[in-house]
């Protein structure tokens, strides 16, 4: 993660950085789940849509590694390459967790529970919505 780039994009405001990371923690988790489900369904259109959105958010948060993987995921979705997609998703999971560990320093997460392959907090989509409008 390029923290300085993120800080610059938040005009040097640590509170905004924290808010952005908190928001990304929720949306990213949701997107990762959706991506997993779309792949399992073989819904390549959804794979392209979700990875494109996730990629945009990841690049704005300066989660460089995630953004690179998501570029590949979007491309594989367009090419309907299930094998490559599966490989990318396997890489995405540890990359996501690495990002979350790093982000923990700047925006400590609430108590978490395990839910399938993706770590999920008790925050809901309403939380995400509230953050978007705040």
């Amino acid at each position, binding site marked *: 993660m390029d923290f300085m780039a993120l800080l610059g994009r*938040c005009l040097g405001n640590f509170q*905004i950085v924290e808010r952005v990371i908190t928001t990304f923690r929720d949306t990213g988790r949701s997107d990762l789940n959706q991506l997993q489900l779309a792949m399992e369904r073989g819904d390549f259109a959804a794979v392209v849509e979700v990875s494109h959105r996730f990629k*945009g958010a990841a690049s704005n948060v300066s989660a460089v590694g995630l953004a690179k993987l998501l570029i590949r995921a979007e491309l594989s979705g367009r090419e309907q390459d299930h094998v490559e997609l599966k490989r990318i998703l396997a890489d995405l999971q540890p990359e996501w967790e690495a990002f979350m560990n790093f982000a923990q320093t700047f925006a400590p997460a609430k108590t978490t529970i395990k839910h399938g392959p993706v770590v999920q907090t008790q925050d809901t989509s309403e939380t995400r919505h509230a953050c978007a409008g705040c």
Partner: protein
Amino acid sequence: MRVLVADDDSVTSVMLEYCLEQFGYEVTVVDNGLKALELVRTGEYQLVISDWSMPKMTGLELCRQIRKRPSSSYTYIILLTSHEGTDSVVEGLDAGADDFITKPFQPEELHVRLRAGERVLALESRDVTIFALAKLAESRDLETGAHLDRIREYCRILCENLLEQGPYTGEIDGDFGRMVYLTSPLHDIGKVGIPDRILLKPGKLTDDEFEVMKQHALIGSETLDAALQTRPQAQFLRMARDIARSHHEKFDGTGYPFGLKGQDIPLCGRIVALADVYDALTTKRIYKPAFSHDESRAIIVEGSGRHFDPAIVNAFLETESEFVEVRQRIANNESPAPVEPGYRPLPLLPSYAQSIGRNVIARESVISW
């Protein structure tokens, strides 16, 4: 200024909202294109930043819908996208986007692109404002719209010559010329504040009436100055104010309202002064016939260094055939003084102005100029 952000990505929305607020914008965030379109339709948003890929309505479709709808004002749209490549740019522009920002966005880039958008919107409001004011001026002017059209054409000719020949090349550039062209029709806007009994009086004004009439320069400049106070960055208002205030000043300091002299008179006012007088001389008024170009030319040359800036008189003499062409092309309903086909400027007769009674004309012309 208000900015509408349409993005289904909450992360980007949070960052954009914060940055835009720090830049001084009033921000509204929505998470899909349909909501954005509804808000644009209220007419309250002229600057829109939209994500490309969104649920319900994409950024591209939003652009198309905004462009499709009839509107009294322009909406400047910046597409925010992770799409790269020329094809995407072409597709976006074709849909009606004005500009692009790619993710990850850079706040500085975002800021300058928004400022570019504001400049475009300011141009639109400038033209609308000038048009509205010019129509207002016209409604109270004894002269026709053709008078205003000729004035600005004369100003354009003078500016082009002065730009090429000097001596004001440091002050005049293309933008200055365009601005004089746009704002010169507002020179008499202050006449809206002159009572009908004086403004529409067919005969000669008394001294008291003339004093009231002279107030139009101040009324016009004060009106435009009040507008300028609310939009200090609007250069066209500044120039319109200067023209309204100074187009009756004379180079030797005997004009009004302030008796400014020489270079103290704004250049735009000195240019409009000559254009206005030339047009007044060459068109028929209730108290005088239309003078020929040569008669008018003689009066203007006579006034060089007294009424008019000599450099501007020189510019006039160098471009007089163009003045004649404009006078022929943009005629009033009543015929202007006849001009022979294939007109060539005649040499000036030094005593001509005196022979037609310059002093009388000067006084009468003040009424209408």
